[in-house]
């Protein structure tokens, strides 16, 4: 049977708290107790549909979210402060009704990794970010075209220096190696010829233009096809390559599945499906999120969570919006965890997975959680009211310290087994127990 067959709850893979939390950790940024309970009740089909439709969040979403976000984003660009633009994005992650869209925006930021270090223009960085968001679930061809015919990426990859008779291969190479085909699916000659096809795509006064005088309209042979190709022809050719579908399938699996969960056969099958569906990202994401493979036991708790999830997830689960955390402060913590938004380390993006963890980033993660538990993310300082949170949601069932810890580990990790809880001493303050949970190994996995 196909690993992509729709998931149906079984005794071995029941639709339980663990799987609801798993879904929200991978496809959103965790969930509140009420959201978890709702999805547990309504089943996986409805839960996945809610995520795809931007209806996963029940609470903690401002009524006028979009207009507030627009104002914050514009003010950030006007201020010229990259910190404020990072804060804007975190505001979106925390308060959007559509967390899957933000997660995918982050994924595309990593796929088309562009750093403001070189672009040096917040307006362009935000514009690119909006493209990733707008096309987060569209066809990959539309996303690719929009992302490339846009100043941030063109400046980042030296397109303005790519002129007839003076080709610069940077854009052509990354387009093939990183954005579409992957190493091994093109030759150096293809890179050279593609660079020629892309001549004339440049930036003028902060906007994309096609400059005919800079374009080399001579004959080129790219991936075995000969013609007077231009940039649009090149994109079309690349998108038709089986390798492009394969790379897209890999990217989606890397984002939504854990270590060693998908095998080559499953990847091929997903890539074929993507080709048949015109590289429709939504189709790919939906196929994965609804699949047997996604909810299979080996896929649970099988990847190192990225810093944004690590930071935003507990804030959502613990209903922090009552005392909103400072998003500029959060962005700075992310930088210390090596995920400096708008400043990916290089054109390859963040390597992710186990590579997120080094001594320095682990210390940053732990210190962040200490600040969270102490309430230092909000101004004025406001520690989370755990007693109230627990009482609201568990009624009378969590009385002892052990029961309270169990509730928190269910909320945060979806785990019911006692293994997830550190040994507790009756009477240990809830804050200190929470800190132990949030800095333990389960907080690092999802």
């Amino acid at each position: 049977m196909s690993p992509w067959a729709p998931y149906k709850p079984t005794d071995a893979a029941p639709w339980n708290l663990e799987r609801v939390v798993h879904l929200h950790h991978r496809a959103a940024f965790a969930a509140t107790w009420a959201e978890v309970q709702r999805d547990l009740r309504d089943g996986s089909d409805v839960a996945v549909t809610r995520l795809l439709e931007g209806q996963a969040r029940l609470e903690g979403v401002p009524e006028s979210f979009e207009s507030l976000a627009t104002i914050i984003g514009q003010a950030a660009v006007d201020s010229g402060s990259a910190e404020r633009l990072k804060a804007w994005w975190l505001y979106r992650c925390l308060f959007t009704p559509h967390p899957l869209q933000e997660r995918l925006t982050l994924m595309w930021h990593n796929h088309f990794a562009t750093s403001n270090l070189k672009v040096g223009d917040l307006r362009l960085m935000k514009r690119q970010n909006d493209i990733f968001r707008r096309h987060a679930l569209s066809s990959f061809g539309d996303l690719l075209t929009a992302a490339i015919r846009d100043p941030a990426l063109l400046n980042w990859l030296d397109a303005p220096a790519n002129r007839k008779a003076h080709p610069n291969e940077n854009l052509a190479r990354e387009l093939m190696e990183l954005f579409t085909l992957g190493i091994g699916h093109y030759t150096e000659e293809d890179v050279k010829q593609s660079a020629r096809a892309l001549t004339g795509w440049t930036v003028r006064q902060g906007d994309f233009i096609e400059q005919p005088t800079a374009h080399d309209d001579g004959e080129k042979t790219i991936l075995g096809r000969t013609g007077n190709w231009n940039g649009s022809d090149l994109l079309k050719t690349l998108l038709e390559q089986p390798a492009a579908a394969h790379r897209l399938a890999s990217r989606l699996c890397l984002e939504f599945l854990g270590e060693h969960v998908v095998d080559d056969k499953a990847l091929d099958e997903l890539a074929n499906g993507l080709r048949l569906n015109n590289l429709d990202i939504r189709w790919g994401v939906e196929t994965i999120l609804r699949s047997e493979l996604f909810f299979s036991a080996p896929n649970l708790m099988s990847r190192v969570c990225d810093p944004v999830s690590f930071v935003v997830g507990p804030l959502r689960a613990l209903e922090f919006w009552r005392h909103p955390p400072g998003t500029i402060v959060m962005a700075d913590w992310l930088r210390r965890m090596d995920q400096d938004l708008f400043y990916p380390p290089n054109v390859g993006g963040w390597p992710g997975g186990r590579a997120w963890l080094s001594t320095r980033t682990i210390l940053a993660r732990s210190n962040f959680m200490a600040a969270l538990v102490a309430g230092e993310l909000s101004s004025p300082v406001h520690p989370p009211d755990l007693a109230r949170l627990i009482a609201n949601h568990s009624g009378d069932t969590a009385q002892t310290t052990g029961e309270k810890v169990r509730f928190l580990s269910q909320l945060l990790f979806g785990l019911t087994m006692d293994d997830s809880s550190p040994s507790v001493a009756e009477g240990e303050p809830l804050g200190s127990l929470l800190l132990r949970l949030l800095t333990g190994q389960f907080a690092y996995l999802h």
Partner: protein
Amino acid sequence: MQPARVNRSRRQFLKESALVSLSPLLPAFLARSVAAADAKPDDRVLVVIQLDGGNDGLNTVIPFADELYARYRKELRIKPHEVLKLDESVGLHPQMMPAKELFDAGRLAVVQGVGYPNPNRSHFESMAIWHHACVGSEDHDGIGWLGRTADTWVSPEASSSGSIYVGVEAPSVAVRGRRANVVSLENEADLMLAPAIEQMIPPSLKANNDLSAFVQRSIDQSYAAAKQFSGSAAVQAGGNDGYPASKLGQKLRLVSRLLKLDGNTRIYYVSQPGYDTHSAQTYPHAQLLREFSSALKAFMTDLQVSKLDDRVVVLAFSEFGRRVDENASGGTDHGAAGPVFLAGSPVRGGILNGHPSLSDLDVGDLKMQVDFRQVYATLLQNWLAVDSQTILKEQFKPFDCLRPS
């Protein structure tokens, strides 16, 4: 390419040192801890100090015996009796006594008249040239010479932080690679645990599988490293460790502590801003040179005491020197070639070439005698043991600045 030099006493030291004996716990103190097996504590390290703004080389390594010097520098002239003489004709600025001591100990090399053809007098362009090690701006793609070097060390299995940049600003283009990672550190607080965590008994949970074992091990190791780091901080804070309080001094102090803890990183990069001295430069320039040389001396002494000095070479450069003729505001304007310093016991200490002529100028600037890429080529080929032609995209005649090993 030469085989990596093995130093018996260093090996011995590694075995004996309590500090390093913990190193199996610290596979990658700052690097990604994907693979634990790639730490090679004997690897050679390059530390770059960037003197930002265009250092007035003529008042740094001073041709005091040349009468033209006094003629060009009427107001800014350092008097011959004040110059710290290195030989019969040149000497260091009087505030550079610590550097003079390094020189006398044979651990400082001076390369004079370093630059590149068709000098560019824009800070941005010239720095970009030094960072990329390419003179054509069309080749300035944001990937620097040390980034390209670190790229050659990237492999799917092994992980190392290609470079560590110490400073609050964005890492220099010089260390940015296509694939290699740059760790940027502002200060020591980045490597310490919050008190609430330190007091917490870490829940060492049972691992269910390889991934959770990896995570647990990484957490445990990181806490151990932080404790070790704060322990060494306490020790150092208690005694006088010799580093000046200047920003550069503190940056180099952090580099030294990282060197002692992290066997993986081979490139460190720091900068000292402030060298753009267009007016009234006498005092600020003296101050900068004092900071530079005292920080460098403290660092070299520390390395020597820690028996790390045979592993480390320091390169100090500025994007250009300044105009030979002083300007009317008691300062100097953007120029061309200037001196480069190399420090460390692997360096061939001394004055490695003559001072550029003060009578044969290129529109008022010193002419280049050594292309900076010749110095890079030597450091790449003979120190970092990478193919310099691959990195520099051209073959440069090596400049003989290292002791034979």
